[in-house]
């Protein structure tokens, strides 16, 4: 997992007012001989809600891992706030203002709800190397933890161990802890997977509301459910076989039968 030097990174784009928060420039990624991504250039600006869709194997996971600095692109570069983040790793990005949630719910089983959120607040407030100051004496952390927990309806569960939460609460806690980083960009990897169809919209509404309240500037959503994508996105990026098939506003996106056929049709074929 050691970061390799990115091959021939293109020059850094100038940082202007409308310049993107996060951007990939001509990114390609190959594993051995397999080309997972090829020449992908996308950009997400402040205020945007962008969805990434595509059939299984289109390269969504690889793109997510590149955007979160986990993987180093074989070609091209990934910029976050104008900085090349190739292989920067999750810790650096969490500190700089990018958070993500996971498709499969991720919790700390033996930590309470308050402690889970506090772990992120500690990072945010730059207090991770305070070796001797008890956490409970830090009012600044406690206030922030309570605020975040309130936003996600977890205020009454603060002292509960994470492993004792219901599945839905675990999901909320996973997302809440990511929001506690006060990120400028948040990447939601199938946030409604494992949630019943009836509840999906409620979950998304909570997430988007919390994001607005927390001052998140841009949201990237990876999602299979086209209803959700249509309801929330400003822009939809469709991947197919490692390339960008479309990068359009929802009305234009859903007006194109070829795109719909590729994205939705193939997915149906795979999942049924």
């Amino acid at each position, binding site marked *: 997992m050691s970061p390799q030097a990115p091959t021939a990174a293109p020059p850094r784009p100038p940082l202007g007012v409308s310049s993107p928060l996060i951007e990939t420039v001509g990114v390609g990624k190959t594993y051995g001989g397999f080309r997972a991504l090829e020449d992908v250039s996308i950009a997400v600006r402040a205020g945007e809600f962008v969805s990434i869709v595509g059939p299984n194997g289109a390269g969504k996971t690889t793109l997510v891992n590149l955007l979160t600095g986990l993987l180093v692109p074989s070609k091209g570069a990934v910029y976050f706030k104008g900085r090349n983040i190739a292989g920067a790793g999750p810790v650096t990005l969490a500190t700089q203002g990018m958070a*993500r949630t996971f498709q499969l719910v991720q919790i700390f089983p033996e930590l309470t709800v308050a402690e889970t959120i506090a*772990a992120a607040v500690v990072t945010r407030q730059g207090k991770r190397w305070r070796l001797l100051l*008890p956490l409970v004496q830090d009012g600044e952390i406690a206030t922030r933890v309570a605020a975040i927990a309130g936003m996600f309806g977890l205020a009454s569960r603060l002292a509960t161990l994470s492993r004792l939460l219901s599945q839905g609460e675990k999901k909320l806690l*996973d997302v809440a802890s990511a929001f506690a980083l006060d990120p400028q960009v948040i990447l939601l990897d199938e946030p409604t997977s494992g949630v019943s169809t009836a509840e999906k919209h409620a979950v998304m509404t909570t997430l988007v509301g919390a994001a607005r309240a927390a001052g998140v500037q841009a949201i990237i959503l990876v999602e299979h459910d086209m209803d959700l994508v249509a309801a929330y996105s400003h822009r939809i990026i469709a991947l197919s076989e490692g390339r960008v098939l479309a990068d359009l506003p929802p009305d234009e996106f859903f007006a194109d039968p070829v795109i719909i056929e590729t994205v939705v049709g193939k997915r149906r074929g795979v999942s049924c």
Partner: protein
Amino acid sequence: MKQGYALFLVAIAAGALALVPVLAPPFYANLLVPFYGYAIALLGFNLLFGYAGLLSFGHALFLGLGAYTAAVLAGLWGVKEFEVVLLAAALAGLILALPLGWLAVRYRGIFFGMLTLAFGMLAHAVLFKFYHLTGGDSGMRVPRMHLLGLEFAAYNKFELLAGPFYYYCLILCGLAAFLMWRIVHSPFGLHLRSLRDNAQKAAYLGVHVHQFRLAAFAISGIYGAVGGTILGFRTGLADPELVYWTHSGHLVFMTVLGGFSSFLGPVIGALALTLLQDQLQSLTQYWRLVLGAILALVVIFLPRGLAGLAVDLGLFFGRRSAPSAASTTETA
């Protein structure tokens, strides 16, 4: 309120320990001196095991380091002050823990255990084989030292151990426990526990997984070396048996006996094993058989150790004596 109750119990225990040299025959104070050494070492060991989730099977290495530091400083170089030796041992623990930890924390689980075991055995081989430097299996002498600048010339070694040194160790152990309490309850301690539970998620919340594991390893190395100086002072000897893998096994034994999921569990385990071993040794030469059976029973039936058992019993009797309190919490 629960914490206040725990603090009350700890104060009573500390008071009882402080009275041992006064009320009990000096034999017992002398017997408990190594307990303080182990208690300090295990407080550090459990930062690594209980809080960071890394089981070292070579941690006796640091106990040996402390004892040998004392032997070299006091025995060869004529340093008289025990405080200087303590500081030097802590420094040596840090200096050795940093490179070893840097190599070891890249692994978890069984690989971490095996690598630390190999480090310990390597140290054993060095101490054992290079007898012109280390005295081989007969080890090196650790002479008695001054405590806080006082020589205690009127005391013989036994009286020194059962009196002034006993209190010295009690206070040192109390300080070490207080510091460790602050560490595990600090933001740093929280990040450690988060990476123990789920390293990937922790990294995405900004937890420096490797750096923090290394920091825990270094702190546990310092605690181990400090504990080792007490063992060396008491026996007057630093020998290779201190770093042998079975000694590391005993550290794990004490920790699990007391319960690694409680802060004071390892300390309770050290006390229980020290007393138990003494009793068994006076009863039978086959004390290992009994000890092994006890360890097996604890592993199978008491995974949370004596501390866990105490908490469960406390809850059980608490509920029986105050049924109204239980019912109010249920309705609430």
